[in-house]
């Protein structure tokens, strides 16, 4: 309604008349993700200040907004708001020419919805604005999207929002995008680019997406995409804010607001999409996207927001061969190997024979000799002593890793943790100085649902970090004893227990690449489920699939049979021993068993012998010598029975083999006596009698 043409792309209008109504391009930057995926790190530092390739995430977002022509940015801070404001002050973002940055502080907002309601009350947004979170990395030009948005607005007042999307194929196996988010289904009108359907929590196991029938009736054509990525960059009209105020239960931008608008057709508000092709846009949502976006930055997809361009306050690094970036004052040992796609910050020293590859190392780190670092994100002032091995881990500021420690894939070490000498941190574990909150919302959904308990706790932590630290110092002495056991000798920190989802969900969002066996398992599960669903649907499986299954079944049956047979024979034999049944009767019984299980006499010999040896073993004995005596007595007692079945050399061999098998698998005690007992069996039993 205001500034239709004048502020196109933030450029001045030609007419004086339009110039008057021109509103500077505004943006709302939410410096809080209202999620807990980055815990435990985010308990001590807000997510937007976490370094991404050695520059805080918020710098990427602000630098992009500034270069895209945004003139006024409102930074909404909630958790750790003081830290965010302090950072913005110290980093000169407040005194940029042609850009005004204002912070809005809140202590009790628990969701994006609350934040927008608060901003609405302040009446600072005067025209169309851009809504982003403080963890967005992009180099897209907003001019085109803004122009489209404004033109649509002129024609149709109800076009309240333009969402920026980008093509990105989800993995067919894990059904998650390369950013680690769930597979997203969108229905878009191919002509008008209107968004008709948005679903990011599809039950992919069934492979079913259900669309409203009305969608197909109302629209002449629909294109359904699962290869689009939501960039979480929205161009909104001022109505969006009032919509949030009207619907006070809207919390999440996508789950509530977008879906709410799409479902509710009474108001008739429409959301449109704008697809970007050559430029880059992504949001750091979880550890996996942290990894992916870091690598995209190193591979320069985000140019000019790359480490060797000083886009804002970051140290200059020089790009070298194979995509390795190195600051000028790095102390690098001659024998250290810096692999491809590695960033090394200023003031870092690296010792002899250390290998670093695919990693980001921050400023002022000390890395010892013979250390191997692969795919890790090491932040500032970290000390890694000699001989450590790190693989796909995130290591926060001030961590000390004592010599010989090993970090397995997917480990996250929060601030100032100390890992003891030679300790192996298990895969996907998170270590923090803070203890895991007892009542923790393991599920994101929960956090939105009950906004009091879980979040008040975070707020209290965030508001008094100093106090907390003090507490910790006093507590450290007693807690250290406990902690020491958790992270090795001399270590400090608590290993957080894995959330309810267990490992199954851990690998999805971790920095580590998805392990092969996980992929295989998923594939297997997927096919299994497919079969089950097929059976449910009464669809006959194709014959080709059936056959191998049946073969497998029969194989298994055979194995099962022989096991059952052995057990039966053993029971019979034991009964004979305890109840003094005659040998002939035993032979009769074993023979009938043999017939019923359809086996050969060789099997009977094996099974009987097995039963005898078991009996000898079960008879109480003190030393190996006694055990040999036991064996001798049992065998001499039942020699007739055994002899009946040892009619040929084949059976004798079978018995020896059976004994060997027993020694290897079942009764380890015999293994030391193998020679003795075999001797006994071989000569004493078979030839003497």
């Amino acid at each position, binding site marked *: 309604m205001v500034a239709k043409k004048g502020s196109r792309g933030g450029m001045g209008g030609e007419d004086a008349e339009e110039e008057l109504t021109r509103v500077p391009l505004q943006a709302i930057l939410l410096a809080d993700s209202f999620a807990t995926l980055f815990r435990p790190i985010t308990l001590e530092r807000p997510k937007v200040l976490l370094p991404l390739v050695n520059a805080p995430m918020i710098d990427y977002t602000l*630098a992009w907004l500034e*270069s895209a022509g945004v003139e006024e940015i409102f930074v909404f801070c909630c958790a750790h708001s003081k830290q965010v404001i302090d950072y913005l002050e110290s980093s000169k973002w407040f005194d940029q*020419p042609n850009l005004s940055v204002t912070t809005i502080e809140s202590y009790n907002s628990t969701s994006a919805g609350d934040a927008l309601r608060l901003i609405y009350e302040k009446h600072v947004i005067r025209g169309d604005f851009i809504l982003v979170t403080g963890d967005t990395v992009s*180099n897209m030009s907003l001019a085109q999207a803004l122009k489209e948005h404004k033109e649509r607005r002129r024609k149709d007042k109800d076009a309240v929002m333009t969402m920026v999307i*980008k*093509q*990105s*194929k989800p*993995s067919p196996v*894990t059904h*998650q995008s*390369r950013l*680690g988010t769930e597979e997203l289904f969108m229905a878009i009108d191919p002509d008008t680019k209107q968004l008709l359907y948005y679903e990011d929590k599809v039950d992919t196991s069934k492979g079913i997406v259900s669309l409203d029938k009305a969608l197909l009736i109302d629209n002449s054509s629909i294109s359904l995409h699962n*290869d689009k990525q939501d960039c979480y960059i929205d161009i909104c009209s001022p109505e969006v804010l009032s919509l949030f105020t009207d619907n006070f239960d809207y919390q999440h931008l996508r789950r509530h607001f977008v879906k709410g608008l799409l479902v509710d057709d009474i108001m008739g508000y429409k959301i449109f999409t704008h697809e970007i*092709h*050559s*430029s*880059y846009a992504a949001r750091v949502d979880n550890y*996996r996207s942290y*990894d*992916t976006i870091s*690598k*995209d930055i190193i*591979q*320069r*997809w*985000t*140019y*000019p927001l790359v480490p060797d*361009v*000083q*886009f804002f306050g970051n140290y*200059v690094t*020089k*790009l070298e061969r194979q*995509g390795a970036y190195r600051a000028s004052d790095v102390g690098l040992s001659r024998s250290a190997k810096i692999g*491809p*796609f590695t960033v090394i910050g200023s003031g870092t020293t690296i010792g002899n024979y250390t290998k670093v*590859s*695919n990693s980001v190392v921050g400023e002022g780190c000390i890395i010892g000799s013979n250390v191997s670092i*692969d*795919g890790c994100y090491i932040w500032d002032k970290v000390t890694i002593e000699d001989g450590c091995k790190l693989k*796909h881990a995130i290591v926060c500021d001030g961590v000390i890793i004592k010599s010989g420690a090993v970090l397995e894939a997917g480990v996250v070490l929060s601030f100032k943790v100390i890992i003891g000498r030679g300790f192996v941190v298990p895969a996907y574990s998170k270590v923090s100085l803070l203890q895991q909150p007892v009542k923790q919302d393991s599920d994101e959904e929960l956090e939105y649902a009950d906004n009091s308990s879980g979040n008040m706790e975070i707020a209290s932590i965030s508001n008094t970090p100093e106090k907390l630290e003090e507490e910790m110092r006093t507590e450290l002495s007693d807690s250290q004893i406990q902690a020491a056991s958790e992270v090795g000798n001399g270590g400090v920190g608590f290993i957080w227990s894995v959330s309810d989802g267990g490992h199954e969900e851990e690998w999805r969002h971790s920095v*580590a*690449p*998805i392990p092969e066996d996980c*992929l295989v398992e998923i594939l297997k599960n997927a096919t299994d489920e497919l079969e089950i669903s097929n059976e449910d649907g009464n669809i006959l499986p194709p014959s080709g699939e059936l056959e191998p299954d049946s073969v497998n079944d029969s194989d298994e049956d055979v194995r099962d049979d022989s096991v059952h047979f052995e057990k039966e024979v053993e029971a019979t034999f034991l009964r004979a021993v305890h109840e003094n049944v005659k040998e002939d009767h035993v032979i009769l019984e074993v023979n009938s068993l043999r017939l019923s299980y359809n086996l050969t006499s060789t099997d009977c010999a094996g099974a009987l012998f097995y039963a005898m040896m078991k009996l000898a073993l079960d008879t109480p004995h003190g030393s190996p010598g006694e055990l040999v005596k036991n064996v001798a007595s049992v065998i001499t007692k039942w020699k007739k029975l055994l002899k009946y079945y040892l009619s040929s050399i084949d059976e004798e061999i079978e018995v020896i083999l059976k004994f060997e098998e027993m020694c290897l698998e079942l009764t380890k005690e015999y293994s030391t006596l193998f020679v003795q007992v075999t001797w006994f069996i071989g000569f004493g039993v078979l030839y003497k009698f």
Partner: protein
Amino acid sequence: MPDVHSLVNEFVIKLKKRKIEGSKATAKLTVELLRSFISQQRLPHSNQAAALIDAVKAVGEKLIAANPVELAVGNVVRRVLHIIREEDLSLATAAVGGLSLAAESDDEDDIDRDDHPVLSATAVAAAARNALRPPSLQTLLEDIPHSAAAPHTSSSGGDSEGKSKSADKNSVTRKLKHNVIEAVNELIQEISTCHEQIAEQAVEHIHQNEVILTLGSSRTVMEFLCAAKEKKRSFRVFVEGAPRYQGHALAKELAARGLQTTVITDSSVFAMISRVNMVIVGAHAVMANGGVIAPVGLNMVALAAQRHAVPFVVLAGVHKLCPLYPHNPEVLLNELKSPSELLDFGEFSDCLDFGSGTGSPLLHVVNPVFDYVPPNLVSLFITDTGGHNPSYMYRLIADYYSADDLVVRRKSAS
């Protein structure tokens, strides 16, 4: 003062964010910034040339560090430094010329020598440099008074300054600044008219019915070709230029101006080169050895041209002349831009998945901007002063830059 500093900072930020592109625009903005910087710079009474040089060096260092890839910034800063030195020298010689008769028996000499060791040092250095510099044709003709005065200055540098301490000090202060700004204005003029200067020579190089090949988009090249067109020469042009396809934009513009234009792909250059009479290209920078830093793909064109004995002509304004050698560690030869110019990210997003396998991608895209063409592949340079052989470049550079400024870095103030 704060005004200038904010201007400098703003410019530095723009350079850092790569918002200013193209060497001519950068050069012009840099020199304009330096002009306003000099005009607002307050100079001390004594030793002002050195003070000014130090101040300009301080700013220049910042500007160069902001975008080390854009060599034009450094070139312009060095030019301005050179201008200051020259003006200082000419003032000094003028003063000596004026004083030589009147102040021969002056006693102040001994007293003032101690006060101004720095200035005399620079004066000596300047003189020494003048003496050392190989006498090019221009210097031989123009600098007769300078070289003649050089021995004088060495002995009476402090003397001249001492004289000016009294009444005419202010006028000298102002005079130096005034002269410098005047000369800088000339430089601005020179940079902004370099296209026309170069284009004027077009008729001498392009003849009737010739086929010309160029690569990428260069404003200089376009002006050059259009100038030839205006002189009623008819010819055909080949253009191209992956990955940025600036050649397409150039083709459009040339066609709009009525030039017969053909677009070919980069890979077909060798196939077409035998039909070409001349290759005319722009440059990013011309190094001291006559090598050229140019848009990517030019080395291939140059090799093809050499194979078929086609003249390879490089157009470059003087602001592109860089006094550094390509092996100098300060020269960052290349910049890698976003790979999205080569590949569509969405299309290849499944190949760029870091989530599986070893965590490193199997597909890696590199998009360098520049190429280096060694001097032996270049037939001719056309600058605004005329055509030059690659081997002559170092002489031109000696004319435009002073050897002391090759490394623009503040050491101790000496």
